[in-house]
């Protein structure tokens, strides 16, 4: 078959010409691929991200890794779901003591899919708490908190506490009887703590009594402060996971084949 005269026209200019020896029958796809590659090249030239992405995605996970190892990413996914549904709830929510309840009632009863999204956020918190406990149990039973992963365990406990704090601050926001009284009691309990206790509850309530600004304060903590810290902590947690590698299940042993022992020296 004679070569189409256009093939040479689709070739990129300069030094890349010889690397794109694609079949002449698919010039269209070739062009698309080329665009993709050059976009990534352009980004990589300026950010050097591809090495990091390769390091993250193509790192090896040890032999014997099983379904228990998905609990961490499942927790993170539940957090992402909370973040997305939370953004939609924030579009309708009004954090003022006089209008909060009405805005939640409007959201639940009038807004298209409002109750569904609020339900996802409400039950998503339960799912996230269960997953975080299961993930912690897996880490404990597999002994994965031991050397060299001690720091990642500590970060994980911080994430657990932050998640429970999210639940505590979020519980007030619908501003119905249940949430108001549970929070009043919860903050009062904080106040009985030694040293910082009274200051912490004064800070949470924005004063000695539950007042008009308390709700706004809980809202800011719930949707700005805590999610920000959680996202940063998840980043650190993931970095350490990739850096140190996930553990193998404790009953898996590397066979002591002599040539491999030689290799690893």
């Amino acid at each position: 078959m004679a070569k189409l005269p256009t093939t040479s026209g689709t070739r990129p200019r300069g030094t890349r010409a010889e690397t794109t020896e694609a079949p002449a029958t698919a010039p269209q796809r070739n062009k698309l691929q080329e665009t993709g590659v050059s976009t990534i090249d352009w980004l990589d030239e300026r950010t050097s991200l591809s090495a990091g992405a390769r390091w993250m995605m193509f790192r090896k996970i040890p032999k014997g890794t099983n379904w228990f190892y998905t609990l961490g990413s499942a927790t993170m996914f539940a957090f992402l779901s909370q973040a997305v549904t939370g953004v939609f709830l924030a579009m309708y929510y009004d954090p003022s003591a006089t209008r909060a309840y009405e805005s939640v009632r409007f959201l639940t009863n009038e807004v298209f899919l409002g109750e569904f999204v609020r339900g996802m956020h409400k039950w998503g918190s339960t799912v996230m708490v269960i997953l975080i406990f299961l993930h912690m149990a897996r880490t404990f039973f597999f002994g994965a908190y031991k050397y060299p992963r001690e720091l990642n365990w500590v970060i994980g406990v911080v994430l657990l506490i932050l998640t429970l704090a999210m639940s505590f601050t979020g519980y007030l926001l619908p501003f119905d009887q249940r949430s108001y009284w549970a929070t009043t009691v919860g903050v009062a309990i904080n106040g009985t703590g030694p040293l910082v206790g009274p200051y912490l509850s004064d800070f949470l309530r924005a004063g000695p009594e539950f007042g008009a600004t308390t709700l706004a304060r809980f809202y800011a903590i719930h949707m700005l402060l805590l999610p920000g810290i959680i996202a940063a902590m998840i980043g650190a947690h993931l970095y350490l996971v990739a850096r140190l590698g996930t553990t193998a299940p404790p009953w898996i042993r590397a066979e002591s084949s002599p040539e491999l022992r030689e290799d690893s020296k």
Partner: protein
Amino acid sequence: MNQLEKEAYLREYSLLKSKGKPFFPYAVAKDGWMAVIVMVTIILMSLTLGAELGPKVDPTTTTYVPRPEWYFFFLFEVLRIIKPPSLVPLAAIGVPSLCMILLFLLPFYDRSPERRPERRPIAMAAAFLTIAAMAFLTYEGANAGSPNQIDMEPPPSVMAGGEEAIRAFEAGKQVVAQSGCLACHKIGENGNTGPGPDLSEIGGRLPRQAIARTLVNPTAPMPPYVDLPDEKRDNLVEFLAQLK
């Protein structure tokens, strides 16, 4: 874990890792399936359980019994069963703080190189005890009766008095339940055993007038209930006098 054990672990781990598969696509595929399961679970829970909105907040009520989210029930139960006021801060702050500190420092006090669960008896026993304790406390917390409630059927003498007497008995029961009597007195199955006396059979011990007098002019540390409206006080006295 000494230096030798650390190096042995790292050597073993690098061997296991070298024989493993790449994270992408093998682990990513599993994680992806898990994400789908999580998403479907959340959606199904939202669709079946909904997002109920309770009555509007009313800071003036004194009878509303707050309940936390279910995963705080264990803490709620610890607070409920520890009664003496001097121990309450310990229960509320001390116990959870201690648990959190122990959890934080776990890798620093458990430093043995052993990872297999069956060879870590102390760690496993501690874990199962913790899980059992939390499950038990959560269950108890979930089934805890309201502190402002008296589960008591009208006695036969009241039942015989007809509908009017039963209504008076119920009204008085409600006043007692809402006035905080149960914080110091036991009435039937409800309330605390101290510091006040058991009122389950107070009607047999004290005449009606004596009960009324005690309410207005009680022995310390009981506060006087002079501010109670007359109708409520009559109901309350009537109710207590019936307990024989």
